[in-house]
């Protein structure tokens, strides 16, 4: 099963590295970079990495990937957006500038709502991985938040997977997953594993 990392800009290598480690640990996945419609057609799941949502959104459109991702996601392809990726998946974006969102998931996201770089932070999160039949029982998952957006509200059918100080930081709606932190910047592979399992589910 091929899992793709959208290779436009941002933490692409970091996600690829995490997926490679998962593959090495015995999970039957093949990590690939996705930059063209041809490679997109081959993957069972797609990670939209952290980066600048405005940049990634504009280039998705300019290079003809936007509509193809929307079409595949609507047919059930698993998509995980981290940070900028979460903004791109949201149906509603609050903030001074509208990104070129894919408008797929029933969440409202506010850009840079945690503040500027001075307000970036690291913490430990409890992550509810129960929905793929595997209760997570560890000390917590590292949460690296960099100029993070806030998930201000979620619609019906969206499951909240993690919260920090009462704010939603991870959520899932069927084949769509968002985290506004960066699991790819930590050593923990738990969220990548969760997503890989999502990719093999039939939805």
């Amino acid at each position, binding site marked *: 099963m091929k899992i793709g990392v959208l*290779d*436009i*800009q*941002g*933490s*692409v*290598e*970091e996600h690829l590295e995490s997926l490679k480690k998962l593959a090495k640990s015995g999970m039957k996945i093949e990590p690939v970079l996705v*930059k063209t419609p041809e490679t997109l057609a081959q993957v069972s799941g797609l990670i939209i990495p*952290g*980066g*600048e949502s*405005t*940049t990634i959104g*504009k*280039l998705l459109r*300019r*290079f003809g990937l936007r509509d193809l991702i929307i079409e595949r996601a609507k047919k059930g392809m698993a998509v995980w957006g981290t*940070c*900028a990726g979460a903004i791109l998946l949201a149906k509603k974006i609050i*903030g*001074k*500038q509208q990104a070129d969102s894919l408008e797929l998931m029933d969440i409202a996201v506010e*850009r*840079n709502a945690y503040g*500027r*770089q*001075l*307000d*970036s*932070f*690291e*913490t430990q999160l409890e992550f509810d991985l129960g929905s793929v039949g595997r209760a997570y029982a560890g000390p917590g998952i590292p949460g*690296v938040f*960099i*100029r993070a957006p806030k998930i201000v509200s979620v619609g019906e059918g969206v499951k909240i997977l993690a919260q920090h100080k009462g704010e939603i930081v991870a959520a899932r709606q069927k084949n769509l997953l968002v985290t506004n932190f*960066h699991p790819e*910047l930590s050593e923990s592979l738990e969220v990548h594993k969760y997503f890989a399992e999502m990719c093999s589910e039939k939805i």
Partner: protein
Amino acid sequence: MEKNTLKLKKGLAQMLKGGVIMDVVNAEQAKIAEEAGAVAVMALERVPSDIRRDGGVARMSDPKMIKEIMKAVSIPVMAKVRIGHFVEAQILESLGVDYIDESEVLTPADEKYHVNKLNYKIPFVCGARNLGEALRRIQEGAAMIRTKGEAGTGNVVEAVRHMRTMVEETAALNKMNKTALKKWAVSERVNVELVEQVQKLGRLPVVNFAAGGIATPADAALMMQLGCDGVFVGSGIFKSSDPARRAKAIVEATLHFDDAAVLAKCSEGLGEAMASLEMSKVEQKYAERGW
């Protein structure tokens, strides 16, 4: 909960990879840059080619202008301080800019010491011509490196030289045994642990962008093919005849740096590039500032 850790400082630069950071002198230019797809902007009063033309002492920009730019765009905003001018750095930190560039393009304020970047909450990017210089800056706390190149010339030759030097020196390091490695570390005034880390990773432990002289989409793609993580474009955009168009083209070229057909397409009909200089005509080499 922890803030301002090295992971967070390096992390922001990681989010900028594969992107273009553009020099802008006002809010209007910052918006053009953001619209073109820049991942960040560098706020400064004069672009390097104007600093070169005007001469005199170049300093940190007016905080008012920096604040206006921070307000105008949602992408990260960087700003420059003079080498060793730790008070300019304190001022930028109080403004809450996202990254500080301790830059040789401004006139150095200290001939002996760079800013002790470990003392700051804000991450720093610094220029380097070779591996040793890059590692000295990282040791002082830099969370991102860029080649110095030769800013304000529109001539990419120095950026190429600096990037090639870093790549060659990193490759040479990989072949060294422990004794040779230690000797190299001592001669370069760098901690041996940091050098060992480079040997293990096969690259710098922080993001490394190209800067200094990039004027065309092909220049940006050249630097990416040489192994940079992204590019800074200074005078190259807003000193060209059609900034919005060129900015967009350079962003696309940086993304598709290995696809000549796309590069050909985005190089088409861009109008005049910035006025440029041959190295032999450059009176003041900014790259020689810092050590």
